[in-house]
């Protein structure tokens, strides 16, 4: 199933030579370089990263494309070192048939059974190497894939997991109101542990539908995961995701619901991240939480546990006259059940919660909730103002010692953004964020605040200068610092090339995407980024 790089390369050179005149080429290049110091706690060390990523697409006649990614990560800012061709594919794409051999991403339904994606910022990559085919026949779309995945765990890079995957999806549009689909993914995997390898088989079926009626739209997705570990346990788990939309005039409402029990385990097993029965890397269901764009709100957010989590999210959009847009978002999430600790036997006993199809605010279930109210207002054609107010609370329950030893953190955030275009030559924006934090694990100073200010100046839409300053009143900040200052300048060389340089200190922190979170270490020094797209 795996295609050798050499085969692709020779095939491509052949094609390139014979139809050279008709080939159209598209190239994007990202060059990143950083030189400075990186810290973890009180330890600081010199750190240099050098990354160059070139994506080249060659469009041949007859709807055929060939693509390559040449990657130089030596070392990268995050992830493992790599130099060479990290992606290659050949693709045929016309109106009805899509066929690709090589590396590819794919999504079935809402990703409950299959969602292969890459996020370089988090060093997460679940692309497959194999064959992907899709055929559209009137209102029926049929897809099938097969291939191998070499997946490096984003938290423990030493854990390289290997999977062989086969899957299929069929989606049928019965009429303009009703669409339904089914998927099935089968996988064989090897998960390495120190001294041993877990071998597993997994099967993940999925069924979903979408119904549109009047101003309402309802989507429901159900999936089940069965995992069998060689010489080990066999675990069956499931997940439900649903979304209800209501749209009328200037009002838009979305209510999302999740009930993920792909591998509900007692706390001992839950925190064993090496267990092979947990959700698999080719599954990535919706997180049912707000994806924030303000810095302090996007940091230290709740990490979704797809193995055991129930919750909902409500988001309301409303256009109040033509110049003011309101957003209201609220979400609540928790674990399903509680596990009583038996200290004599050093074991847990499951205590089922009544109504565990809904989230709980009781600390025992490690709840997380947040809400955000935001207004975007245009003062005139050239000036806009955004202001928000958010509160959130997170509990990480200590299953052995109980509530008193649990980690409880809550915060209130007020973000403000003002932008003005003065004339053809100059525009500016100021962003200010203020956060009040209450963290019971910061025992000597439970209450503190964080502040962030950014001042962006744009000249002729060609040059920009950005000053960023961040401050904390936390005397026990893990990095040992209380403020961070960065100056960044960008220059648009032409429409295809942008360069930016920054110098200063960056605070780092937890960053999450698609339910995957990573701690980004504080960095102090110089950074260069050159983006090219031709």
């Amino acid at each position, binding site marked *: 199933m795996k295609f050798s790089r050499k085969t692709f390369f020779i095939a*491509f*050179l052949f094609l*390139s030579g014979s139809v050279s005149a008709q080939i159209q*080429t*598209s*190239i*994007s290049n*990202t060059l990143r370089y950083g030189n400075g110091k990186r810290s973890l706690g009180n330890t600081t060390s010199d750190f240099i990263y050098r990354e160059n990523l*070139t*994506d080249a*697409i*060659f*469009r041949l006649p007859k709807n055929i494309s060939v693509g*390559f990614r*040449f990657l130089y990560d030596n070392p990268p800012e995050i992830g493992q070192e790599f*130099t*060479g*061709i990290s992606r290659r594919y050949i693709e045929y794409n016309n*109106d009805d048939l899509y066929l690709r051999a090589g590396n590819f991403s*794919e*999504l079935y339904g*809402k*990703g409950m059974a299959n*969602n292969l*994606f890459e996020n370089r910022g988090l060093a997460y990559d679940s692309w497959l190497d194999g064959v992907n085919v899709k055929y559209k026949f009137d209102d029926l779309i049929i897809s099938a894939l097969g291939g191998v995945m070499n997946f490096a765990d984003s938290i423990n890079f030493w854990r390289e997991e290997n999977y062989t995957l086969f899957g299929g999806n069929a989606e049928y549009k019965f009429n303009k109101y009703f669409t339904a689909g089914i998927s099935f993914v089968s996988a064989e995997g090897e998960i390495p542990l120190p001294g041993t390898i877990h071998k597993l088989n997994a099967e993940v079926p999925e069924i979903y539908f979408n119904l549109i009626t009047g101003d309402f739209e309802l*989507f429901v997705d159900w999936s089940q995961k069965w995992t069998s570990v060689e010489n080990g346990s066999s675990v069956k788990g499931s997940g439900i995701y649903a979304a209800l*939309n*209501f*749209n009328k005039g200037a*009002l*838009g409402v*979305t209510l*999302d619901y999740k009930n993920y029990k792909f591998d509900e385990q007692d706390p001992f097993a839950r925190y064993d991240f090496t267990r092979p029965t947990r959700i698999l890397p080719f599954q990535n269901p*919706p997180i049912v939480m707000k*994806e924030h*764009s*303000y810095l302090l709100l996007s940091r230290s957010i709740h990490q979704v546990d797809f193995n055991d989590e129930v919750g909902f999210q409500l*988001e309301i*959009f409303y256009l109040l006259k*033509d110049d003011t*847009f309101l957003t209201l978002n609220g979400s609540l999430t928790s674990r399903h059940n509680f596990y009583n600790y038996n200290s004599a036997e050093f074991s847990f006993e499951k205590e089922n919660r009544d109504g565990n199809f809904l989230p709980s605010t009781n600390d025992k279930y490690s709840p997380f909730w947040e809400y955000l109210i935001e207004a*975007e207002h245009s003062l005139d*054609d050239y000036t*806009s103002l955004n202001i928000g107010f958010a509160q959130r609370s997170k509990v990480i329950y200590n299953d052995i010692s109980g509530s008193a030893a649990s980690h409880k953190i809550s915060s209130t955030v007020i973000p403000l*953004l003002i*932008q003005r*275009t003065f004339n*053809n030559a*100059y*525009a*500016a*924006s100021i962003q200010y964020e203020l956060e009040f934090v209450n963290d019971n694990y910061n025992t000597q100073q439970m209450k503190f605040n964080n502040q962030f200010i950014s001042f*962006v100046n*744009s000249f002729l*839409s060609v040059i920009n200068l950005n000053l960023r300053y961040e401050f904390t009143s936390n005397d026990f900040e893990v990095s040992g610092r209380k403020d961070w200052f960065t100056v960044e300048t960008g220059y648009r060389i032409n*429409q295809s090339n*942008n360069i930016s340089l920054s110098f200063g200190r960056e605070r780092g922190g937890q960053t999450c995407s698609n*339910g995957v979170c990573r701690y980004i270490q504080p960095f102090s020094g110089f950074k260069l980024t050159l*983006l090219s*797209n031709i």
Partner: protein
Amino acid sequence: MKKNIITGFILFLIAIVNPVSGQENINFSIDLINGGEVDFSTLHQEGPVLVNFWALWCKPCRTEMKYLKKIYEKYSGKGLKILGINQDTPRSLSKVKSFVNSYGIEYLIGLDPNKKYFEMFNGQVVPYSLLYNKDGEIVYQHSGYLPGDEIELEKEIKKVLGEE
């Protein structure tokens, strides 16, 4: 290591000996958020098209969209088409339709939850905009958004519509 660098260099040579025509003459069909689908080649034959990649979680994208909405209201009567291609993944995809409808966006919005079209256009960051003339040639492209960029964009649109 040496082998990899040589391979990269050969790729680079192939790229430069072939005509680099960027994202021109791309042909695709995309499903639209409010039903139906649109064929890109048909779209740009009807008039200049601005393709704009955006996402709900991207603040600069949403600021830019406010201006795109105004630009569309101003120039759609003169033949301008805008195709917004949303980059939200399934985690926030459910809200896109509500946002688009309540924000009063009248131009075409397509969905790209696994970045198939973004990859086809070789995109790197959002927002990413490309302005095509009637012949399918790119007359302007732009990555990112900073306040004031909307003035430059409107100037280019006027130019492609023959108003400047």
